[in-house]
């Protein structure tokens, strides 16, 4: 019993209720619109990224919806800051990087099942490389107005 108590005491001390220990990482991924991605409101996750969803990603970023970085392993990090700009709700930096694949160096945090990222440096900006428009068209379809078609 005493050993169990010791183990539990160790666990309780080692795992604070609101743990947010940052970890330096370097990660490559696409900057995405997290609402459309997580909610499925416009279809599956492969359709709401890349060129197919670029205009909508601009709309959502300008509208203050949080931008995420979808890493190559599928992990999504909610991006809270990019190179000194903490304007994560509609800021220019995030808007200008919509749909871009970047290599980011920064501090990752995890809390209550979500991952977060403070990007200290955009190591490389590969631009928009996920060309999925032939698979999905433009998502949503009205993202290209009729007069432009």
């Amino acid at each position, binding site marked *: 019993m005493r050993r169990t108590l010791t183990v539990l005491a160790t666990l309780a001390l080692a795992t604070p209720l609101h743990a947010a220990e940052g970890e330096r990482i370097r990660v490559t991924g696409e900057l995405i619109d997290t609402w459309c991605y997580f909610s*499925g409101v416009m279809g599956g996750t492969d359709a709401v990224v890349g060129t*197919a969803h670029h205009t909508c990603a601009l709309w959502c970023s300008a509208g203050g919806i949080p931008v995420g970085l979808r890493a190559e392993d599928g992990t999504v990090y909610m991006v809270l800051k990019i190179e000194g700009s903490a304007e994560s709700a509609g800021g220019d930096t995030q808007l200008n990087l919509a749909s871009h694949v970047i290599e980011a160096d920064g501090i990752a945090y995890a809390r209550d099942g979500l991952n977060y990222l403070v990007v200290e440096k955009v190591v490389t900006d590969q631009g928009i490389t996920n060309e999925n428009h032939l698979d999905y068209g433009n998502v949503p379809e009205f993202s290209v107005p009729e007069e432009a078609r």
Partner: protein
Amino acid sequence: MIRPALVALLLALPAVQVSAQDFSAGSEAKSWNLYAEKPARFEAKVVDVLCELTGDCPADCGGGARQLGLVRAADGVLVFPTKNNEPAFSGAVVELLPFCGAEVEVDGLLIEDPDIGATNVYQVQLIRKPGETDWVKANRWTKVWAETHPDAAGPGPWFRRDPRVNAKIAETGYFGLGLEKDREILKELYP
């Protein structure tokens, strides 16, 4: 002697399962027919997410520039409101900013789809201070956008008139690959 201590320790352990609680009781949230939505009404403190995680804390929660979160009173879970209640590509910061640092009661939809990493993601529909009877609808964003963009007034939704968005589309096209490539894509998609 040992047993009360054991119970106390168990209570002190992180309530990993608590985040899976059902918060639907009393919710009046309207469905958006989303795959993983669950109605959820709960009390929470409005926080600046960057501050909450890193200790970088401006006095005004960032004045609308930063993402805001909800630290749920029942379990301390940080819920991330990513969407307001307008079907208009708009986030939740404008709605929650007036309540920066305050306790609120919110009603909306929790998105729980662990297969794609979505947990404790929230669409906020209604906000009020605890004990108040009247709700504030989380649909102020478009009005605030119009007030801050008087030069963009006109017909059609905001996202067709937003100067920054339109400048980006004018520069790199609807698909972001440049105007020449954009014309090629449009010919392929709409022959």
